[in-house]
């Protein structure tokens, strides 16, 4: 369990790391083909949103990138293929997933949840401490409740813990599966602002979100995923203005036909 070799000075490293490329990804749950050739990219420090209807394969996309289910296609991180690596080693390469439903260690304390993430990544004690200070500064409420069991937190606090835990592993790409789910509007905007700031500091973020309006409002670029394929992509601003996207995902001009979804 040794940390990844350092690449030059921190400043240089920041420019090099966090470039995620996904080519022609196919994956299935049992016989159900959930992903049929998705291709997308996230440059270092870029904020990418993936939107799409329920059942489009958004969660599957993230799970496949993390290697949580068998898949075909290529996943590159900074030019290095992750395809043959199991999940835990992909995490050690710098990917971090904030999974759907948070997946906390319910019966461990908040602090333990955070420390285990650094432990899994193989961080030294001092780096772990430093990272912990960062997470506590981002989410002061976690510092207040660090001795509490994870399951005793409220929904919003649990989501913060899930994100904080992902940040503990010093990721260069942060992948998030519907982190806004069930959060109060005020917390949603706070969270999005935070992600935006992390991006500005060089972290790459891939946000999969049902709440298209919120996601598009903060992302640099966005992809629309429908029935396992990327059907549209471009700068978030352009997609926000696109009438088809507005109709399907932004509750734009209400027409009965909007229901039938767009054909890919």
């Amino acid at each position, binding site marked *: 369990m040794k940390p990844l070799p350092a690449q030059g000075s921190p400043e240089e490293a920041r420019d090099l790391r966090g470039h995620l490329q996904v080519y022609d990804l196919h994956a299935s749950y049992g016989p159900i083909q959930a992903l049929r050739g998705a291709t997308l990219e996230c440059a270092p420090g870029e904020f990418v949103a993936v939107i799409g209807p329920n059942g489009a394969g958004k969660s599957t996309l993230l799970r496949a990138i993390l290697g949580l289910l068998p898949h075909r296609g290529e996943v590159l991180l900074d030019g290095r293929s992750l395809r043959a690596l*199991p999940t835990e080693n992909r995490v050690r390469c710098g990917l971090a997933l904030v999974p759907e439903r948070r997946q906390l260690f319910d019966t*461990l304390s908040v602090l333990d949840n955070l420390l285990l993430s650094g432990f899994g*990544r193989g961080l030294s004690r001092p780096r772990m401490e430093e990272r912990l200070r960062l997470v506590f500064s981002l989410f002061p409420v976690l510092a207040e409740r660090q001795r509490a069991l994870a399951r005793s937190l409220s929904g919003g606090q649990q989501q913060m813990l899930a994100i904080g835990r992902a940040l503990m592993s010093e990721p260069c790409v942060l992948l998030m599966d519907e982190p806004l789910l069930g959060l109060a509007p005020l917390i949603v905007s706070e969270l999005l602002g935070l992600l935006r700031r992390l991006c500005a500091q060089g972290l790459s973020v891939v946000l999969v979100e049902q709440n298209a309006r919120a996601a598009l409002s903060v992302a640099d670029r966005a992809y629309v995923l429908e029935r396992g394929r990327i059907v549209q992509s471009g700068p978030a601003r352009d997609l926000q203005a696109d009438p088809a996207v507005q109709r399907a995902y932004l509750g734009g001009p209400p027409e009965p036909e909007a229901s039938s979804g767009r054909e890919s």
Partner: protein
Amino acid sequence: MTLGQQLAQFIAAGIVNGAIYALLGLGLVVIYSVTRAVNVAQGELAALGALLAATLVSAGWPVEGALLVAPTASALVGLLAYLAGIRPVRTASPLVLIIVTIAMHLTLKGLLLLLWGTDPYALPPFSQGPPLRILGAVVARQSVWILLTALVALTVLYGFFGYTLYGKALRACAINDLAARLMGIRPQTMGAMAWTLAGALGGLAGVLITPLTLATYDMGLMLGLKGFVGAVAAGLTSYPLAVLGCLLFGIVESLVAGVLPSGYRDAIAFGVLVIALLVRAVLALRQGVLVGEEVLTE
């Protein structure tokens, strides 16, 4: 002896046996919760410790040395068993894992037979002297040894699971395997640790019990089964409940054995097991959510 004295005697003996079962039960729990395998070969790890300790002591080693070496050897065998048997089929169904541990049980027992033969081996009590009197019960010095050693082992375990990141990582794997992998925690490393730990606990249990009984190559099955009876009470998942269950089982076994002909002692485990299963089943039915886990993974 009055009835009260007799009762105290039985309870004391039960606690001593229960402490040994607890070590085995904890091994079963750690293996089950981390690698999902019901380890039928747990008792063989104890038998190995027992036979090795008896041999070392009769070769002139000090008891303390045997007390260290035998559990270490069992731990290594546990690790080997994981690497050779469980790791290759790690992702297979629980059914396959059970079949593999049954195969392990048979193979390990055969190896013990090859190395030690069918003769029983004796281990002298760790310290000589007249028995002690505690609360009206006459307690052999070996029993005190057993209780103290078990207590030390449990304290160390408590510290390990409660205060070290390795211990917490093991618990994390049991709580949420997926999340653990997402944290970069390697399931194989954790599996290897779990089996090593269970091996050490088994070996220790074997060494401790030998002065009370005798060490034979085939002592493992019953020992493992008795550890299992206690661990069932904890649903094979909770460490403190497993210890409690094993102690309770030790006491019940001791009390019931007092009124039954000696040949039936091994049958008590079955009776208690059925009762424990029944109680757990009734509780589960009352809680009602029997398919809940599957729903939540949707």
